[in-house]
């Protein structure tokens, strides 16, 4: 049995989600814009899912724009909102925010501290007169740090600035409430929640204008053209409902196992270093650790060969890794970044799996060090 500890790259499909997706795929054609009864059924399924996704973030169904994923949602926010105005973001964002911000408009990029935290003071101080959009990820999927989004929102009050947050890594792991956060836009991904890849959403506060980036149809209230991916969106809806219902239990479970994982590693590999917040709020499921002098690439291979799936950081195409830009932004050297691994747990992760991961990883570190010294 393999042990899957890469939930931040993509969580396993939950059985209830799979059943719901398969039922749609096995059913009649599902174009919600069609006039016939099949179309009406598809519309009902789509709107049920919209209600579930809205409920996950405490928003209204009409505020949800379904997309192909969080990457598209981030693109829609960064390209379609306050086009041309300066955007302010942080150095540890997902590439779909950081690259899009830099490519599309004047951008200010705020740094983070050595534990991967952005401060509200830094963000507010960097907000220039021409800044029209601030985009700060709610939780960082590589090191687990959490941004003070609500404080930033309070600081921006009274200014003509919109606030976007990428919550793809926070959903299902932290309570989400767009009103409490005070944001104007929020991105979500289905497959980080145990839904299918290929579905995501941008929550857009009522009254905020978003220019469609995919055009040629009235779908999603004119904000995203193209026939909706109903099967995947239905799966997203089920995953969102489960995440909301199970959040408290799942978060406590994952936090306990994540800390057990780190404690186990500390006991076996005394010089292990945790990357990310040493204290205070952090994602309950994410552990980023460095083993000095041990290439993360080698550890990843040995773990994979032994049946344990982990990551070097954010997943790159074809697994072709670069040193993590998040760790680099935290002031880690390229070598330090290269000797780091990310382990991310899910609600179904078991204590036995964590114990096995500790054992295999500790052994791999010893082996790699011994072989490198030989």
């Amino acid at each position, binding site marked *: 049995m393999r042990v899957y500890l890469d939930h931040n790259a993509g969580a396993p499909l939950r059985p209830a989600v799979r059943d719901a997706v398969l039922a749609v795929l096995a059913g009649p054609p599902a174009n919600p814009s069609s006039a016939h009864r099949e179309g009406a059924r598809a519309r009902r399924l789509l709107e049920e899912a919209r209600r579930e996704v809205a409920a996950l973030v405490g928003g209204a169904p009409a505020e949800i724009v379904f997309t192909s994923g969080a990457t598209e949602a981030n693109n829609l926010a960064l390209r379609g909102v306050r086009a041309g105005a300066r955007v302010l973001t942080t150095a540890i964002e997902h590439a779909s925010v950081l690259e899009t911000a830099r490519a599309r408009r004047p951008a200010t990029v705020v740094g983070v501290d050595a534990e991967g935290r952005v401060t509200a003071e830094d963000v507010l101080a960097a907000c220039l007169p021409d800044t029209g959009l601030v985009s700060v990820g709610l939780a960082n999927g590589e090191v687990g740090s959490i941004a003070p989004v609500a404080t930033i929102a309070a600081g921006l009050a009274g200014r003509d600035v919109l606030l976007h947050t990428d919550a793809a890594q926070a959903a299902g792991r932290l309570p989400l409430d767009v009103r409490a956060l005070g944001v104007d836009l929020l991105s979500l991904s289905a497959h980080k929640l145990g839904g299918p890849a290929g579905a995501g959403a941008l929550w857009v506060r009522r009254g905020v204008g978003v220019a469609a980036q995919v055009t040629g149809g009235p779908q999603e209230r004119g904000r995203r053209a193209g026939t909706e991916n109903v099967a995947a969106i239905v799966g997203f809806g089920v995953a969102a409902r489960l995440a909301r219902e199970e959040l408290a239990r799942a978060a406590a479970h994952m936090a306990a196992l994540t800390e057990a994982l780190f404690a186990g590693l500390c006991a076996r590999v005394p010089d292990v270093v945790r990357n990310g917040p040493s204290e205070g709020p952090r994602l309950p499921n994410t552990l980023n650790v460095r083993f000095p002098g041990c290439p993360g690439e*080698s550890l990843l291979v040995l773990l*994979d060969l032994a049946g344990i799936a982990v990551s070097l950081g954010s997943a790159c195409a074809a697994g*072709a*890794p670069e040193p993590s830009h998040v760790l680099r932004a935290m002031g880690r050297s390229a070598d330090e970044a290269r000797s780091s691994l990310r382990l991310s747990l899910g609600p179904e992760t078991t204590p036995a799996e964590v114990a096995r991961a500790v054992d295999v990883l500790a052994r791999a570190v010893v082996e790699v060090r011994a*072989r*490198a010294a030989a």
Partner: protein
Amino acid sequence: MSRERVVVAMSGGVDSSVAAARLAAAGHEVVGISLRLAPGGDGACCSLDDFHDARAVAERLGFPHYVFDFTEAFAERVVGPFVTEYLAGRTPNPCARCNQHVKFDLLWRRARELGAARLATGHYARIARDPASGRPALRAAADTDKDQSYFLFALDAEALARTLFPVGDLTKAEVRRQAHGLGLPVADKPESMEVCFVSGGDTAAFVARHAPPGALRPGPVVDEGGRVLGTHAGVHRFTIGQRRGLGGAGGPRRYVRAIDAATGTVTVGAAPRPAAGVVARDVVWSAGTPPRPGAAVGVRVRHRQPLVPARVLAADGTEVRLAFDAPGPAVTPGQAAVLYRGDLVLGGGWIVGELAVHEPRPVPAAR
């Protein structure tokens, strides 16, 4: 008894794919590794498509595959020296350098960390035992057209002992046939002949892009009498022995005979000047000891050029001096001089210059 773990360097091409397939079929525990060498995957190699191809082959054959990021090491050990060499008036050989400093050094160390006993590549070369020393020695490939032993001369006996070249005994046609037989998606993939990190094959433009400020200086083109024939935009645009048109289209064609990077002077002549011999440094000897003075060898001073009969004038642990039996091909500093006995590689080094004509030739010994 667990199977021997072997790391196979996979480029995504047909040769390394078949190499991996043959090892898997022979019962080894194969781990495929592709190297990301150039950032952005520009150039003809290590693009995402190549990684996907390698991964598809590994998935089809049922062994794991990973991509390692070697961009920093490659920039430092191969690309940097490549640019420096051109700016110094030499013509570097990045493939041989990459083999010596990246694949068979850094990648081998990684492979060892992974518990691998051996490292395999898709090179066309064989590993034999030197009958004289009993040590492992490099041998030219069965397919003489495809032989890549020239690029591998820097592998010493210790490196060869842990290396496998699973396609070295096959012809390219046989490799493609085997790839087809296994249904590998790369069976008909064309091979790359260019320097992998230079996109479009424009070496001069690449060097110009990567040169430090002020390093590119124009200079005179002169004939052997010192008469100035024109000017050029930088010595990195020339290679000794190369035939170049001068003075624009339709101008006379001349052979590059000497490059003086210090003054920026490029000397050309109407005919290539045959070299009397070659001097190479930073030598590696497969047998552990250099060949004796007077030894008759074949030497190759450029990939795909025929072996030139030569005699060893002097050889030690750092340098070798060879006299061609008859005036030989142009000798290009920066390339490798690789010594063969028959199809066995004795070793070689990096060319620093041609043999001065006044150097005494060895007394011909009995062959």
